[in-house]
């Protein structure tokens, strides 16, 4: 079918820190450029979820006077603690010198990445960038030579039966000489581009984590603005790795969260329930008791780093930020690197437009000469060391590598197994059970999803598609007891049983757009595609 077409100079998919930094840089370099950003969330920030402790390195370069400009980075990190939870009640603090240097947080800021993105969007708009929230990019559009020439926005007003409704509005083709893809972790267009252009050739497979986060209003007497606590250990055990964070923000709020590596092997594992259990540890509950939970959300994290980073530039565009995988896992920070990758992309595209080059080929050189490259290179062993040697020896290796060799240790560790392939069958795994939530510190999934303000138009096609309809019944339920029931942090997937037997029920309207199902399904049978624009969570300040 023919679509209406709109032309821009540069098109950016996704209004997160990477896409918006890129947009701002493009307009700084050439105010004449016609830059368009599309965003699937109902507003900028609606789908943004992060810890977040932000290193202002890239922001200093983009807007040196960001403080005067009112950037919402106002809580400097004051105190930095690393804790190991030994069991459900005891913990030990790791002395500062024993922790890898990359885990130190002086000079950083605790902030809501959603609010920071909203602020970046204001800056971009005042520079003349056109930002369109509620418009999801549904497909990549290629020219006859296979070069990317833009995207197609999703149709609006299509019913569950795939038929147009009264308010049907067909999608539009947005074209530009260059398109920047900044969808965040496991973007569905990024995934297609990596595959089509074979961008991950000779790279390790990408690795992911799932991050769950809650925001709490706590007793002012227990609040210590600027306190940053990171830790690992209980309740995770066996070959399940991950870590928690607890940040004291402003206004007596704290952000608490757990990140679990998605290469866990036990199909009975429930990241959501691990997180709920974590909050009962005295180390955490001492702050939460008497407080009130105000928000909840979850998002997958791209954490493979240097070894897994695909080639980012391709004919017609560039893949940036977590869509490519620029997060520095050794620092559990991805905002500064995502922004920097966007700014480099802006420079490369500006070079190409100026000299009428067909492709933005200066990107690779600019990237290799930047601090982004050296930072990611020096952190390349961090994740693989933890995966290979576990938290103790791997952690010691990381301290040695980061503190003594500054990341320049002359060897590179690899982790060549895809996360989903690590999942064992139920016959090979110990069944895990979780205590019931107490309704004070821990909660069930549905009351949690309620706090994410998630909403999707109900009468629309299901946006969680199964490549093969029968896989849940023939493989996932009998061999894995359908792990989606447990790894989905929003209760989208349920196995129900009636006279006809078991079947998988998908309640797509609860989806938080975290992408975990697209990553972790052992058969890679679930494809996440964008629902009607504007659907999904409405995070206020995550």
């Amino acid at each position: 079918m023919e679509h209406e077409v709109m032309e821009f100079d540069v098109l950016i998919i996704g209004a997160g820190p990477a896409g918006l930094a890129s947009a701002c840089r493009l307009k700084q370099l050439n105010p004449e450029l016609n830059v368009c950003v599309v965003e699937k969330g109902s507003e900028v920030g609606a789908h943004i979820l992060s810890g977040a402790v932000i290193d202002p390195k890239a922001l200093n370069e983009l807007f040196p006077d960001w403080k005067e400009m009112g950037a919402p980075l106002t809580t400097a990190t004051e105190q930095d603690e690393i804790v190991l939870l030994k069991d459900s009640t005891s913990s030990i603090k790791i002395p500062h010198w024993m922790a890898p240097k990359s885990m130190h947080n002086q000079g950083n800021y605790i902030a809501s990445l959603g609010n920071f993105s909203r602020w970046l969007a204001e800056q971009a708009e005042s520079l003349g960038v056109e930002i369109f929230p509620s418009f999801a990019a549904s497909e990549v559009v290629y020219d006859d030579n296979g070069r990317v020439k833009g995207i197609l926005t999703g149709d609006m007003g299509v019913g569950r039966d795939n038929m147009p409704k009264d308010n049907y509005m067909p999608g539009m083709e947005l074209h530009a000489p260059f398109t920047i893809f900044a969808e965040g972790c496991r973007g569905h267009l990024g995934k297609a581009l990596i595959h089509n252009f074979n961008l991950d050739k000779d790279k390790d497979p990408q690795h992911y984590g799932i991050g769950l986060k809650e925001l709490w209003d706590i007793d002012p007497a227990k609040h210590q603005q600027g306190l940053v606590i990171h830790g690992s250990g209980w309740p995770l055990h066996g070959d399940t790795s991950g870590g928690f964070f607890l940040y004291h923000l402003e206004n007596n709020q704290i952000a608490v969260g757990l990140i679990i590596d998605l290469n866990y092997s036990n199909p009975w594992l429930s990241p959501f329930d691990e997180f709920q259990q974590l909050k009962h540890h005295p180390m955490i509950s001492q702050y939460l008791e008497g407080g009130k939970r105000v928000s909840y959300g979850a998002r997958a994290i791209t954490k493979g780093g240097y070894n897994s980073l695909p080639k980012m530039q391709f004919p017609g565009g560039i893949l940036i930020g977590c869509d490519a995988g620029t997060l520095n896992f050794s620092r559990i920070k991805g905002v500064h690197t995502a922004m920097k990758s966007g700014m480099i992309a802006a420079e490369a595209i500006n070079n190409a437009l100026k000299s009428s080059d067909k492709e933005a080929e200066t990107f690779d050189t600019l990237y290799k000469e930047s601090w982004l490259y050296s930072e990611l290179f020096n952190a390349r062993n961090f994740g693989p060391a933890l995966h290979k040697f576990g938290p103790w020896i791997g952690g010691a290796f990381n301290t040695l590598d980061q503190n003594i060799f500054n990341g320049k240790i002359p060897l590179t560790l690899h982790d060549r197994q895809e996360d989903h392939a690590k999942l064992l069958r139920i016959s090979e795994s110990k069944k895990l059970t979780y205590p019931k939530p107490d309704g004070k510190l821990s909660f069930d999934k549905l009351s949690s999803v309620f706090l994410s303000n998630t909403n999707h138009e109900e009468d629309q096609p299901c946006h969680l598609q199964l490549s093969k309809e029968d896989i849940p019944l023939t493989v996932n339920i009998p061999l894995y007891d359908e792990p989606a029931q447990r790894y989905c942090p929003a209760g989208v997937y349920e196995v129900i049983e009636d006279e006809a037997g078991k079947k998988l029920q998908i309640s797509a309207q609860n989806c938080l757009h975290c992408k975990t199902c697209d990553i972790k399904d052992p058969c890679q049978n679930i494809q996440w595609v964008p629902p009607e624009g504007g659907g999904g969570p409405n995070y206020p300040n995550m």
Partner: protein
Amino acid sequence: MKILVAVKRVIDYNAKVRVKADNSDVDLSNTKMAINPFCEIAVEEAVRLKEAGSAQEVVAVSVGPKACQEQIRAALALGADRGIQVETDDNLESLNVAKLLAQVVRDEQPDLIIMGKQAIDSDNNQTGQMLSALLNMPQGTFASEINLQEGEVQVIREIDGGLQTLGLTLPAIITTDLRLNEPRYASLPNIMKAKRKPLAVVTPETLGVELKQHSKLLKVTPPAERSAGILVSSVDELIEKLKNQAKVI
């Protein structure tokens, strides 16, 4: 024919309303805001009348802080021609909004005023009626169908237990109910065009309207949390519980 549509900036219907810790008000910091759904229906109806050739111009007006320009732009993206913002940072009660709108109506002289029956934040359901009284114009509230005729408008109203059809002489005020129409999606080119449509900013002072607060917000408290339900295994158990525990039968 000119149509004036009033739009209000309210908390998005998907966002969860939170009360400030000190119970002084609702906490709207960083919360998603949107055009009040009933106002959106009013805009859609006005645009449809224009598309049908019955009206020539649709003017969207909003009363509020600078941020409410977003909602005026949303109305312009749906098809309104120009916007007017009455800028004020005060949290106004219905009568004050009606007084400001009345002055805008006197200045603009529209033939028809369409507005939402109520806003989903304060749920007052007053402004349209008050505006009608201040301007001494006929009103058709809770409209589920509007038919324009020569010099008058027929309004089908949703009332308890049925529908009522009124004929109003123009100029008149109509407030919209849910079933009047289903608003369209704003298209990307229309959102872009909306950014360039004229938007005038006036203030209560320039309108010459003096505002007086008649009520004071004392306290906001969230509704009591419901305790979890229980599953009963049989009808007998249910009856027993209703009788002895809940004591309702």
